[in-house]
């Protein structure tokens, strides 16, 4: 299974970014391959409006099954994500990506 995280860095030790649309990175973990990759999303800082849908579109292309993030995505981003069928897990704030992953696996998120 492929899992996406909104993070402030590119490693397991990176802090989670509670934001969705303007998250700094999308960290991708492929469980089968045990492979960690990332997408640099800092470009959204240039957009006055519509950062949410743009990030959602990118996420769709990255094609994870699950997204783990902090706050819930805003209205427009949520509308796009709904169409992608990606399962959204919120509430992963004040922790690292590793901690968020462990919590998710234990069903604590």
């Amino acid at each position, binding site marked *: 299974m492929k899992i996406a995280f909104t993070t402030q860095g590119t490693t397991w030790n990176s802090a989670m970014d509670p934001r969705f649309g303007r998250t700094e990175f999308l960290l991708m973990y492929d469980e089968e391959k045990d492979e960690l990759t990332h997408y640099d999303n800092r470009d959204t800082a240039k957009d006055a409006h519509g950062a949410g849908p743009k990030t959602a579109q990118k996420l769709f292309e990255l094609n994870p099954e699950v997204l783990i993030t902090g706050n819930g995505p805003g*209205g*427009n981003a949520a509308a*796009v994500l709904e169409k*992608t069928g990606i399962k959204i897990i919120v509430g992963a704030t004040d922790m690292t990506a590793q901690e968020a992953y462990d919590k998710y696996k234990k069903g604590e998120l």
Partner: protein
Amino acid sequence: MKIAIASGKGGTGKTTLSSNLASYLAEHREVVLTDMDVEEPNSGLFIQADLKHEEDKFKMVPQWVEDKCTLCGICQKVCNFHAVIQLGTMIMVLPELCHGCYACSELCPESALPMIPKKMGKLIEFRSDNLHFIESRLDIGEEQAVPLIRQTRNYIDKTFPDEVIKIYDAPPGTSCPVIEVTKDADFVILITEPTPFGFHDLKLAVETMRKLDKSFGVVINRDGIGNNDVMDYSEAEKIPLLAKIPNDRIIAEFYSKGQLIYKEVPAFRHELDGIIAYIKTLKDLKQ
């Protein structure tokens, strides 16, 4: 004659002044009061009138026609607002983000994105004797106030003759929606409080009105609190000071209950008389 009532910051008494001024004027003549704060209209909380007319307001947004689409991706590339998104074999339109520029629709080589009307809000018209009250309200999630304000202005121009006094209650701030409201006003009343916050935001509002080349005056609300900076500034800048509404807890209490104040507080009514007298001199000047 069109009078817009605006202010730099929120909570300075815009709605109090516009609803009271309109109701007071309507005791002797026909008046249209319009709440142009389409994101958070609440003048209606102070006006008791009968529903006369109601209409949905629309904006034009693209609609994806799947059969015609070749998924070339031009539409999403030309949209500067991220309102058109391509998800694999699907094109998704986010109407709330769309500015109705038509670029995606007209630049689509297959005509697969025709523009269709989408409801963005509602205009409601009430009437109580001489007072017409119009409120436009954006639907939740809609972000662009300007198109609805523009349509509301058009509705008023079409429905009411020139000689009827029109009062616009503007949204707070100095951004695009305020500019759209004050654009065709004959006179703008800037209401402020004589406090450092009020003064700071008044200066921004004055700068905006000067840039738009508007004729305007200042009303001080809650006179007696704060300091003399607003008064000194108005004098130095030769901005007419139309009224000073006294600071009185009783006014805040009537306001909190949604009651008209001029009926209860003579000092308040006296200040409205001053504003009306000034407006009348403007009219004479025009004729």
